[in-house]
């Protein structure tokens, strides 16, 4: 079937998220960014909508709904349209929940899901990025090796959101040349939570460096147990997630800048009467459309039970470049005002660079 129209259910979910964003995110995003903090009650409200847990079985505390990558993409876009940091933090547990549901052993699911799917938001996080030049999510420097029935992990990770408060960290490491995911408990003596990072953007999102040195993990904490997990599949989903939040962010910049431009005059004429301004807006518009369609296209593949390797890769690649392009235009359209932190396009510009650089901050 080919259709670009949302189902009633999708529309309802999207609208609900949009309402939340409008009520508690949009107008507070600047303050969150300046104060480098997201109020817990906002996160809790988003959590209660169930974005991270809807597809988890009811026995584990989820809603038992069908897993729909497209619906999740709609939710992520909407959240990121409000604020990228908020979107990431609100859905952060899904970075653990989603692979756990898809690829965890039943023991792992029974052990972790009830904790993660509680009524109260409880941070769980993913450690995948590494602060090395040429970092590649498929060529990890962090290594795991099997020794005496457990795994020893060694490596440095950066950009681990909420590492300090998260109840557990899913760590990506290469095991015999194959990338795998491991649950690392916060009390593991081989794990060291490093300094809190300061970044170009996403200021409201606390991120940390962590280091693992011969960090010993019991065999049962390798995601998927003995046979491990399908890391490539995990990447597909997280790449689509990144594409979805990139779309939301770009849309926010596009819409704000367009509305601003409409009301702005210069040389005695509305600036939108100038082709250079109008064409920029047209281009931003169809790039946002393109980004969303690329995201949907990849998510649709997954939803149809097909492989989405190509589509997910291209969606992240494309949205990564275009988010930067669109958010740059957003600042440009506001001119000097766009350069100040009084207007959100400034924040969008900083956050805009993140989509291509960072891996695994959202998943469908």
């Amino acid at each position, binding site marked *: 079937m080919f259709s670009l129209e949302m189902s009633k259910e999708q529309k309802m979910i999207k609208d609900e998220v949009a309402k939340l964003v409008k009520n508690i995110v949009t107008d507070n995003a600047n303050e969150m960014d300046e104060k480098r903090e997201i109020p817990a009650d906002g996160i809790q409200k988003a959590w209660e909508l169930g974005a991270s847990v809807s597809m988890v079985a009811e026995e584990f505390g989820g809603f038992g709904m069908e897993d729909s990558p497209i619906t999740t993409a709609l939710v992520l876009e909407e959240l990121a349209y409000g604020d990228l940091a908020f979107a990431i933090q609100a859905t952060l547990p899904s970075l653990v929940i989603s692979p756990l549901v898809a690829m965890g052993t039943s023991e792992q699911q029974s052990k972790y899901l009830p904790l993660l799917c509680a009524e109260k938001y409880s941070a769980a996080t993913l450690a995948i990025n590494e602060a090395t030049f040429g*970092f590649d999510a498929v060529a990890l420097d962090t290594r795991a090796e099997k020794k005496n029935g457990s795994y020893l992990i060694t490596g440095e990770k950066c950009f681990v959101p909420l590492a300090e408060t998260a109840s557990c960290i899913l760590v990506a490491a290469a095991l015999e040349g194959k990338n795998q995911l491991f649950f690392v408990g916060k009390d593991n003596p081989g794990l060291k939570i490093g300094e809190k990072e300061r970044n170009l953007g996403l200021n409201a999102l606390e991120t940390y460096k962590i280091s693992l040195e011969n960090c010993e993990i019991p065999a049962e904490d390798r995601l998927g147990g003995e046979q491990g997990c399908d890391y490539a599949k995990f990447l597909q989903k997280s790449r689509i997630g990144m594409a979805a939040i990139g779309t939301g962010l770009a849309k926010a910049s596009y819409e704000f800048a367009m509305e601003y431009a409409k009301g702005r005059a210069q040389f005695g004429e509305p600036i939108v009467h100038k082709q250079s301004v109008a064409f920029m807006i047209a281009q931003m518009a*169809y790039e946002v459309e393109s980004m969303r369609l690329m995201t949907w296209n990849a998510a649709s593949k997954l*939803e149809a039970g097909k492989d989405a*390797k190509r589509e997910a890769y291209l969606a992240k690649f*494309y949205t990564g470049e275009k988010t930067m392009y669109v958010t740059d235009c957003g600042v440009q359209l506001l001119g000097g005002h766009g350069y100040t932190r009084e207007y959100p396009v400034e924040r969008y510009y900083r956050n805009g660079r993140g989509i291509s650089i960072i891996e695994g901050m959202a998943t469908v």
Partner: protein
Amino acid sequence: MISLELPEAVEQTKQMMHSLATDVFRPISRKYDDKEHVYPEELEVFRGLVGGGKQKSKAMPENVEKGKKDKKPNYSNLTTVITIEELCWGDLGLMMTIPGAGLGNAAIAAVGTPEQKEKYGEKWAAMAITEPEAGSDSASVQTTAVLDGDEWVINGEKIFVTCADRCDVVVVWANIDPSVGKAGIKSFVVEKDTPGFKLEYLEHKLGIRASDTGTFVLKDCRVPRENLLGTAEISKKKSFGGVMQTFDNTRPTVAAMALGVSRAALEFTKEKMEEKGLTLDYEKSPNNLSAMEKDFYKMDAEIDAMRLLIWQAAAMADAGIRNSLQASMCKAKAGKIGTEITQKCCELLGPMGFSQEYLAEKWMRDVKITDIFEGTGQIQHLIVARQLLKLSSKELR
């Protein structure tokens, strides 16, 4: 529910068109690039088969006008753009000269009376809009048609008429009342042998040389009263809008042309890359690729983006939703990016991209027309922006 999986029937059409493109178009692609102005007889097999009068009308389903949805999903526009992508993957110039599938045929099918459809449905009908001083400005038609007894007397000059030499009849745009401006623009079916109707010359072009493009001069050219397409009544609101509506539906097809040609160039480049041992596995960070791979992925992503924008415009038309914005969006993007892709492919191919031993250089010439005809990329951006900003054509010129 959102789903981008192609329905089985559409998928089958796609494969069939791809086979036609491979088996019929590709083998004669270079031949008719060389033999400019020679009619590709091999295309006779297509007469009445693809995009003929009746089939072409699917591209403009009536429910677009009605604004209400049929229960059963309608994929006619989607099928059309997919057909065009595949055929243009074969050869854009040849696709444009499929006998009986001219733009004029589409116009007759869209607004002709039953009698007109009956009379001209099987004829190959070209469309004559552009005039020497107008370019993309289809509203500034200077050609006039004056009713004299039971005949329209048409005077004017028309340039860039596709299938000018090969067609049987030409749908000519002319103004029946210049005092009311563009509201007076109507279209007329003019048969080739009509006295006063002369094919002045054929263009020598950069690309799409298999398709003949010509200039017509109309000098006191008389056509029967009933050859006016649609109604002679002048309505300021509808008339020109109705004429322009045709373009809302042709823009995605032009975008699909750009898509088909540029995809051909990219696939050829990919073959050569793979022969050289570069495997494209959609995995490594773009920072860890070779320059060729990264360029390839960039283009591959753009190809997908173009296609999805085109499909979106087509799906909206199929669903009876007005798609003028999306139609211009996809053409704005595809014309420009499609052209850039073919240029980049030639660059990546090195000397193989400059030699006529391969088709890459031809694709670079062919595709450029898609950023020009049926409204340049600049015009498309204007249309998009006007709609987004709710500005009139006076406010945003």
